[in-house]
């Protein structure tokens, strides 16, 4: 575990109106690690993930990627939002895969992957097409490159969405409950792709309810409860030795779904 810290969150706070959803989250993700956020719905997992990618703006604390503060810089003790161009550049270094896939319906599988390569990274069309082809092959969809999203199954769409995110060569990949909208028989193909990515050394931060997958693939598991980190550690420790009653009852409910996790 000597790798450097890639993502560091310190005291991250976020409120929606009067409701404080994140009450000071501290979290480190090291280079090459897979870190999973678990917790009941409403515990702030997804909100935290979205703050990392600036789809939500945190109100307090800081999030550092490679030591650079995300979204804000401090100026004379005050937080100043970064320019839109800087925010976009930061987002390009972080990939995100969504629960609802969010493929662009007017572009083919290949076109979805090429858009960021050509319009953000400035690659030529030929090179972008090669890269798209490479990643489509890696997710097992080489022969579907010319298909539009509506011609693909949910699992295939999600694999294209993963390819779209990885092709940008991000420093960090975020996965937001990416199998929750899939039919059960399609979950495995998506998890398989994610497992391969994890093995290839990609740094990943994921929110998931697939406890067995989380247990097998994660280096660290972080249990969020009421907008705070209630317990964090290697999966064996979190699943095998839950410290709080809340985590025990959460895992208890999950046992009912997945069988014995620990």
């Amino acid at each position, binding site marked *: 575990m000597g790798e450097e810290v890639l993502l560091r969150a310190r005291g991250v706070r976020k409120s929606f109106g009067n409701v404080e959803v994140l009450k000071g989250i501290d979290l480190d993700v090291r280079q090459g690690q897979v870190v999973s956020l678990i917790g009941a719905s409403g515990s702030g997992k997804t909100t935290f993930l979205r703050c990392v*990618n*600036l*789809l939500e703006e945190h109100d307090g604390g800081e999030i550092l990627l490679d030591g650079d503060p995300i979204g804000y810089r401090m100026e004379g003790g005050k937080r100043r939002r970064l320019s*839109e*161009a800087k925010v*976009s*550049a930061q*987002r*390009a*270094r*972080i*990939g*995100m895969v*969504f629960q*609802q896939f*969010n*493929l*662009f*319906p*007017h572009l083919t599988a290949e076109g979805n992957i090429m*858009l*960021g390569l050509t*319009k*953000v990274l400035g690659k030529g069309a030929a090179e972008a097409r090669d890269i798209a082809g490479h990643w489509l092959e890696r997710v097992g969809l080489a022969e579907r490159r010319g298909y*539009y*999203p*509506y011609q693909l199954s949910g699992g295939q769409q999600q694999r294209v*969405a993963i390819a*779209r*995110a990885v092709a*940008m060569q991000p420093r960090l990949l975020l996965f937001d409950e990416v199998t929750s909208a899939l039919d059960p028989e399609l979950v495995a193909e998506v998890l398989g792709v994610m497992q391969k990515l994890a093995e290839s050394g990609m740094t990943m931060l994921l929110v998931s309810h697939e406890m067995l997958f989380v247990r097998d693939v994660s280096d660290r598991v972080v249990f969020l409860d009421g907008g705070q980190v209630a317990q964090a550690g290697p999966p064996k420790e979190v699943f095998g030795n839950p410290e709080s009653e809340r985590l025990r009852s959460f895992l208890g409910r999950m046992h009912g779904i997945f069988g014995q996790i620990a």
Partner: protein
Amino acid sequence: MDLQPGTFAFEAWTARYALWRGLWATITTSSFSIVFATLAGLIFGVALTYGWWPLRLLVRLYVDFMRGMPVLVLILFTYYGLALFQVNVAPYWAGVFALAGFATAHVAENLRGAVQSVPAGQMEAAKAIGLSFPKRLWYVIVPQAIRRMLPPWVNTCLEIVKGTTLLSVIGVVELLLATQQVIARNYMVIDFYLLACGIYLVVNFCIAQIGAALERRFSYIRY
């Protein structure tokens, strides 16, 4: 064929240049209005959706004013009203501006509706790959919004073509006024109004067909 004066065929043949010039005026005023209204409407629509709030308010006032105003009043105002302020515009262009100004409001409102009906996840996915705001708009949102805008846009085009008949009031010799001038010579009221009806129907049918072809062209955009 029996081409005697007084028969419809003879009179129509005699009036062919007058009617053609009228039809041409209808087609060109419509085309200019549609092009101006579409371009301005797209810009206004983006301002209406994403603009800084004072700009949004301004455009909102414009849209609501234009939508609440009878087109004929707008046409009369741009022609006679502006003349009172020493701004003299030829009837042809006064008519084009009035129609374009009117239809701009409709296109802008259609665009806003279309953009807002694109699922929020599309904008988020576009943000997530690092696209800048103009690129998110241009490469992700607009292509999907256009698909949704097409049917109401075709309606607006048809309204513009029909609206050009009102330009006869300020002396633009478009198809309707040309027809009336022909009727004034030969008194064949029913025949020539029917002819004008037929021509308007053909023009609008063509526009509707183009619209349908465009819709088919974009039909691959589905969720």
